């Protein structure tokens, strides 16, 4: 279909899966981290904040290499995981999802945190006087009010994950059917004469996917905004 080779189709589907899984698994962690950073005071907060930004600051290759050293089968976390659970990230699509999730994480975190910080805390107070403990308050007030930011975070992370290349290829290499995502495939095509057209075609697929995701998020956002707008 559309003249894509089976390998390319595999890469497209894999990219979708990797970006989706990376984003969705990262989401709850981002929610917790964003909440902690927005609301709590604890020693080492700035340090944690800084560490969570690292994937943004470091060249992706460095992040990928670091993941390889940590979550590779010889890595100090990867080894534990493999020996205790028999689970490994290395050279699996799960590793690609990890890399993409890690790279997109800071973006998601920041957007969500920004939204948490913008919430009128008097509404949370009101919820507590009505009998909601902090969990319920979070679920029924904080989260719904922060939804536009969560949505932006998700879309940023997803988009980033779709485009992520340096960390992925460094961590889990570029194995067709397992870890070759769209950007890796594009990279490979740019490395040989005559691959430009195919690279371009794959880039277009990325764009289309991102566009669809964006439009979806936009529609959702408009609905949410309409719901929680303080003024029509």
């Amino acid at each position: 279909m559309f003249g894509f080779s089976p390998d390319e189709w595999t890469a497209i589907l894999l990219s979708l899966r990797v970006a989706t899984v990376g984003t969705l698994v990262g989401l709850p962690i981002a929610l917790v981290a964003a909440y902690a950073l927005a609301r709590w005071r604890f020693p080492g907060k700035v340090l944690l904040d800084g560490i969570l930004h690292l994937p943004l600051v470091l060249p992706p290759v460095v992040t990928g290499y670091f993941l390889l050293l940590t979550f590779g089968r010889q890595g100090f976390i990867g080894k534990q995981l493999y020996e205790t659970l028999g689970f490994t990230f290395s050279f699996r699509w799960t590793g690609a999802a990890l890399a993409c999730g890690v790279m997109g994480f800071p973006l998601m975190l920041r957007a969500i945190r920004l939204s948490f910080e913008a919430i009128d805390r008097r509404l949370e107070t009101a919820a507590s006087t009505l009998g909601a403990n902090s969990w319920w308050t979070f679920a029924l007030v904080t989260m719904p009010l922060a939804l536009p930011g969560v949505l932006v975070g998700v879309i940023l992370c997803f988009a980033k994950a779709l485009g992520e290349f340096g960390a992925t290829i460094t961590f889990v290499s570029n194995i067709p059917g397992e870890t070759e995502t769209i950007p890796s495939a594009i990279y490979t095509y740019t490395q040989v004469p005559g691959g430009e057209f195919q690279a371009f075609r794959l880039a277009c697929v990325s764009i289309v996917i991102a566009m669809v995701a964006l439009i979806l998020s936009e529609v959702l956002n408009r609905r949410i905004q309409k719901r929680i707008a303080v003024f029509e």
Partner: protein
Amino acid sequence: AQAQKTDASSITIFAAASLKNALDNAAKAFEKSASTKSVISYAGSSALAKQIEQGAPADIFISADLDWMDYVQKKKLIKDDTRFNLLGNRLVLIAPKSSPVELKITKDFPLSAALGDGRLAMANVKSVPAGKYGSAALEKLGVWGEVQSKVAQADNVRAALALVAQGEAPLGIVYESDAAAEPKVKVVDVFSEDSHPPIIYPIAVLADAKSAAAASAFIQYLKTPEGQAFFTKEGFTVLK
């Protein structure tokens, strides 16, 4: 579903990205003749070497230069007896198609003058093989000192090629195999073989290859004239 097939009918190859076209075709032909499927992961040689060090499930490694093959060999990650030099390549000086420049590569040739205030596009001279070979050649020819400050180092050969093809840089040094396929550039001259260390793509079977037998079979196939043809077609030279 375990995608890294461990059965003997499938091999995983870690190969330098510049080999894609030739190796893809060779692997396809090999699959037909020997019904061994091959999965090929293309990336930079350094990334691949480090992944092999971290236990990547590969059977064969093809590096774009000797350094990274030496690196994995020193760590005892390959079967020493299977290593050999698969391919060679030639370095060429290129210019945009429309450029009137004429140069003969000789000792002290006026490269700097030909550049004017333009840049010489090369792959990274510290890290990318083509860049390393190129700077070695220029040094040997005695012109490196003059042009050193005019070099624009790209991420890889293809990016250097793009700089020349786009007319950003008036001259560039790339592999012949790349230059041949780009219609927007022309080859000004070829660097002589003795002006730089030999350009070599070494290949080896990895020490903990899961399908060592099939891997060896594939390497044998690459040595046959039929296998070699795929590489010569893309502009590589086959080493004996």
